[in-house]
Structures are given as structure tokens and as C-alpha cells.
């Protein structure tokens, strides 16, 4: 029984989307009925620079298999410079993740504008595919967070 469950493991993906571009892009993907896997769950943040690296670590700890961060295109940030901070911070975080042994591919930054519903859906499909091929994230998960 457990084995079947393992086989059907559906990766859990947390997506942080900035309110102005990517969240609107996700809405556009929705209103254009462009599907992406249901295991992608979106958290709305005012700007990609609101995403504390701790949030990403927390997600991995709680059993997320992949974390994707979406913001406005560099230069188009609603708050002028927010995504530049994000880019630098995440660059450092992602290389640290590699050091812990979490595959770098489990994290990603994508720039999705409010007009790019199609890109949003493509990115999410592609990311979900990558995460599926990487399998379950066991490196940082906190066993207390799992059932039994």
C-alpha cells in the first residue's frame, strides 16, 4: 500500500508570485484556460523582493519538492528595483542550496509579466516536469511535519 502511494507521489510546488506581474500573469493563464499541474500552489507577495530566503528553506523543510519564484521582468518592477534585490539574494541562496545537497533545479526564478499568461503556464509545466524527474525532496524535510 505504501509503495503504491510512493509511486503516485505528486510533487508539491510552492510558487511565490509578485502581485503586479506574475500573479496577474497567473490570472491571465487562468482566464485563458491554460492549464498547469494542480500541485503548483501560489502564494501572493507584494513584490518578489518580499520573499525572504527563509521562506524557501521553510518550504523545503515542510516537504515542498520545488520552489519557484516569479517576478516582473528586470527593469519593469512595480517598485522600480525590487526584483534586482531578488535576483542577487536568490543567486546566493541557490548556490548555498547546492551546498546542502538540494538540487539546484528544485528552485528557479522566472520573470513573468502581467501579459504573459502563456509563459506562466509553460514555465509551470516545465518546472513541474523537472521536479517530477527529480523525485521527492528528502534532504531538508522535517520528518515531524509528515504524517505518522
Amino acid at each position: 500500500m505504501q509503495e503504491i502511494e510512493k509511486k503516485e507521489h505528486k510533487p508539491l510546488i510552492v510558487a511565490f508570485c509578485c502581485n503586479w506581474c506574475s500573479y496577474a500573469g497567473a490570472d491571465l493563464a487562468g482566464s485563458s484556460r491554460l492549464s498547469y499541474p494542480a500541485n503548483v500552489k501560489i502564494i501572493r507577495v507584494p513584490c518578489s523582493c518580499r520573499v525572504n530566503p527563509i521562506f524557501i528553506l521553510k518550504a523545503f523543510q515542510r516537504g515542498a519538492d520545488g520552489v519557484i519564484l516569479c517576478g516582473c521582468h528586470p527593469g519593469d518592477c512595480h517598485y522600480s528595483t525590487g526584483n534586482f534585490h531578488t535576483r542577487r539574494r536568490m543567486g546566493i541562496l541557490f548556490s548555498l542550496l547546492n551546498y546542502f545537497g538540494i538540487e539546484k533545479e528544485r528552485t528557479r526564478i522566472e520573470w513573468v509579466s502581467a501579459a504573459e499568461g502563456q509563459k506562466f503556464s509553460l514555465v509551470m509545466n516545465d518546472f513541474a516536469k523537472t521536479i517530477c524527474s527529480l523525485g521527492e525532496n528528502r534532504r531538508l524535510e522535517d520528518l515531524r511535519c509528515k504524517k505518522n
Partner: protein
Amino acid sequence: MQRIGVFICHCGTNIAATVDVERVTEAVKKEPYVVFAQNYQYMCSENGQQLIKTAIRENKLTGVVVCSCSPRMHEATFRKTAEEAGLNPYLVEIANIREQCSWIHKDIEEATEKAIVLARTAIAKLTLNKPLIAGETGVTKRALIIGGGIAGIQAALDIADAGYEVDIVEKRPTIGGRMAQLDKTFPTLDCAACILTPKMVDCAQNEKINMFTYSEIEEVKGFVGNFKVKIRKKARYVDEKKCTGCGVCMANCPSKKGLNEFNMDLNNRPAIYIPFAQAIPNVAVIDPEQCLKLKTGKCGLCQMKCGAGAIDYTQKDEIVEREYGAIVVATGFRPIKLDNFNEYGYADNKDVITSLELERLMNAAGPTKGTLLRPSDLTHPKVITFIQCVGSRDVSGCGKPYCSKICCMYTAKHAMLIREKYPDTEVHVFYIDVRTPGKNYDEFYRRAVEQYNVDYIKGMVGKVYNENGKLMVQGSNLLDNEQITIPSDLVVLATAIEPDPSVRDIATKLTISIDTNNFLTEAHAKLKPVECATAGVFLAGVCQGPKDVPETVSQASAAASKVIGLLAKDKLKGNPCVSHCDENTCIGCSQCEQVCPYGAITYEEKEFRIGGGKTEKRRVACVNPAVCQGCGACTVTCPSGAMDIHGFSFEQINKEIEAICKR
């Protein structure tokens, strides 16, 4: 003890068809603090909202989660509902189970599971929500319009009419824009100048309207109601107040090699010039690239001849700083460059022209004084071939993927005007589709075919080449399954239009979003077509998407009415979801001050009690909530964790992650 109510919307069948709303209702009832859960067909309807209000009152709810469409759609609606029932509006959270769930998933099981998780996440976040009170800011009762074409002019007149001050910033020396270059306008064929120039004069005479021509936007700071804009007034080398527009300088200028931009470079103009006779302001400008005095120091003829003493070679660019409550972007368009379309021979043959060039050739104020003469030898063309969709609907990468919308109509107009003025001319039009939606538009096109005998050929041109002075237009006639070659005297290309390249820079300065074709993105494709995601910025004209004159005017008026609505308010409610500093943990490192894009954070010396009756003075960060826009850059930068943001706090996002990851 919190008491949370959850409301699940069916959205007709939009949600209910793929999400089992009953199951979601049952599931959320098991969540901590949830004391009430209900589903209803349309939560946003009058009845739905009433339902929420009643539930808040009867169950003494301390928080509300609405599982419905995107918060970008109805968050404001439900916040207002809560407020009306006596609940702080920021104790409402939305779970987006339409755009991000029911619309993209087909499997009911999967979608329902996801909806439950999303609802759970919203509930988890809500448990940490705090009642917030929005601050208020004043509104500067003045509007800025970027671009002085027909869109900008119309918006300015409408706003000024309502009694507010308006500034128009136009990068060219005169307002009027593209419409001033047109000869006639479809579908009624009245002359563009006759309907546009009176509006331009109105702008000049209206005391509420202030024009900055030959000026560009240098910097934009601030936010809705309180924009601070730096405008660069480029040096004209002519004193605007003294110049009378007599034109003596133009007649005496020895440098006459400058290309006349207004006539699409079809003829030359002097180095000192007034773009066209009806220019507003009717003031000369010196082209520093061409002026001998500015280039070599030797000349000064215009200064000698100017009776008004308006010429000033020492003039420098000037920066003006102004404050505005709202901004309208109306930067307009230009025809695309045809470098990628060698097959039409535009670069090699003078007689292959764009439609905008033809417009100038047919205009009474144009280089040929309104007589249609072909550019190469100034003879009357006898056979004219129009080619449609040059660069439009092109996904090969050479052109633009969209339909430029105006070409079908202006080609019909050109064909008709030519056939009327020169009945001995043969006119052919190669088309892929003729698209003429609009009042009296299709009738107009049919008139070109039926009344004026314009030869419409379904097919596309593959090659234009010069053979013994004739332009051979080789194309297909799909309906007859033939390949035909038409020896023509003049070939007119219906060139695709693209947003004026200056729009990129303006979008960056205003932090408004732009799509892959450089069109500005409106806040909602259907319901907010003139608003931007950035509050206080509105769109008018082709900068938002291809449009003809009537549509541009309607959008400009729509934008103006939005601006008036904004300026009419004395106070604007701010966004209370802003940063705040925990002064007890702040270590005074100044890092937040450095990352803040708005300068909302300052440092102050404050006295703190440290026990034992003693106090100490420490430097701590202070956030000005009226200036903070709530991006959150400081919260992540802060090494001590003193900075946090209302509405998206560290704890709240952590709770959301926990809720999502709970399996």
C-alpha cells in the same frame, strides 16, 4: 478566540463545474477557528454580499475568507462588504479558486483538493491578520499627459474642461502628433487638419492647459495623487515667448539639408524651422545637427533677421519639476522600419512608399502641395498598387504578430481618394483579409470596390522589382489561382504600426508593465481598459494597442474621466499594507534605508528604557507610512528582523507555506 467565516462562491458554473463546493465547505469547517462556512452561487452579487454581512453579524465573525475569483478582481468588493458589516476590511482574505484552480484544471478530484488547500492557506493567513486602518494622503489637483497627439489633446481638453490644470509633455516641437500628418480621415473623409487644428488651438488658448513641447520626461517619483515629475525642456535656441512664428528665419537659413520629419523625410527643411503651418506653439526651433552657427560658430543669419530678437544660441536644456495627481500616457505609434522586407524593394526604389508617406504626398501642405506625384520623377502615377499587411500578422520574426487594425481602412480611403481625384488612374489592392469592423466601415470599403472600381486582389505580393522604370509587382491571385505581375508606377505599402520606441523608457520610469510587442498593459483586458496596474496612471491611444482615430478619442476621454474622478477627491485612502519597524529589535544598521526605493525610511534617535530606571539613546528606523508603498525590500534586508510588513508579514507567509505543505 477567533471566529472565522468561510464563503465559497460557485461563480455560476465557473467554479462549481470543476470544484465540488460542498466538499470544500465541509472540509473548511474542520479547520481551526472556522465557525461558519457556506457556499453560494454568486458571492459578489447583492445577495451574496448580504449573506456575508448577515453571517458576520450573527456569528460575530472576527475574520472572513472568501473562496472565489482572483483577489485582483473582487478583493476590494469583499473588503467593502466586511466594512459595511462592521468588520475591519483587512480581516478579509481571498482564496483564488477560479483563475488558479477551477479554470485551469479539468479533473474534479484534483481541483477540489487544490481548492481545499487554497482555502486552508487563506484561513491560516487570516488567523494572523490584524485590523489595519488606511492612512490618507492629499491629491495634487493637476494632471500630466505624456504625448501631445490626438489622444493627449483630447484627454487634456476634457480634464481642463472639468476645471483641473493639465500639463502636456510632447517630445516634438509641436503638438498634433500623427493625426496632424494625415490628409483625410475615414470613414467620412473629412480633412484631418480641419478637425484637429481647432482642438490644438483650444489647447493653446485654454488657461488650464500648459504645454511643454520639445520636452521629455526625465524622472518620475511618488505615487497616485502625489507624483513628482522632472521634465527636460530641450533647448530650442529660440525664445518661445518672443518668437512670433513669422517664418523670416526659415526663409533666410542657409542650411537647408535637414530632412523634414513632418513630411516623412520626403523633402528638406531649413535648420531653423516650424514643423508645419498650423503648429502649436507656432514657434521656430533650431536643429542643432544642421545649424551652421551651432556647429561651426559661423552664420548667425537668423539672429540678424529675427525682428523679435527671439534667437538665443546659448540656450541650454532646462529641467522643470512639477507635481501631479494623475498621469495619462499617450505616446502613440510609428510605422515599423522595413529593413526586414527587401522583397518589396522599399530601400531601392523611390516609388515604393509607405502609406504615411502617401498621406503626405496627397496632403495640400505636403511636399507636392497635394498633387499626387511619384517621388522619383514627379510624374503622375497611372497605375498604383497597394500592398496590405506589410509586417502585420507576421510571426516569422520579420514583422509584428498582431493586426495593425487601421491599414484596411486607410488603404480603402487612399484608393478611393485617388480614384476620385484622378479617375484615369488604375488602382490595385493586394489583400489577405479585409477587416472593417466599425460603424460605416464596411460600407466604406464596399464603396471603394463598387463605386470607385478599385481592383481588390485576394493574394499577397512576393516581389517588387524595377524593370525599365516600371515597378513590377509580382503576386498571387488566390481566387483565380494565378500568379500575376502588375507593372505599376507607384507601390504603396500598408506598413504595420508599432508603439513609439520612447514608450519603453516611459514604462520603466512609471513602472507600468509592457507586453512583448511594447504595448502598455492595461489593468484588465475588458473591465479596466484605460487603467494601469499602477494606480494613478492611465492609458490612451495606440500605446495600449492599435487603434484608429475615433477609438483613440474615446479612450482618451475615458482616461480623462478617470483622471477627473481621481482629482475630484480631496483625500486618497492609502495602502495600509506598509512596512513597520520593531524599535526594540532594530540595531540601527541603515540597510533598510539603502534598499528603500521611495526614501520612506529615516533614522531617529530615540530613548529606550533599559531597566533599573535607566534609559539609553539608540538610532532606530522609522517608516513614513504615507510614502512607503509596501514592496517589502526592507523586510528581507533587515538583519535583525525588526522590519515587517502589514498584510504580508513574516509570520503570515510562513503560515501560508505551512498550510500549503501540510499533507
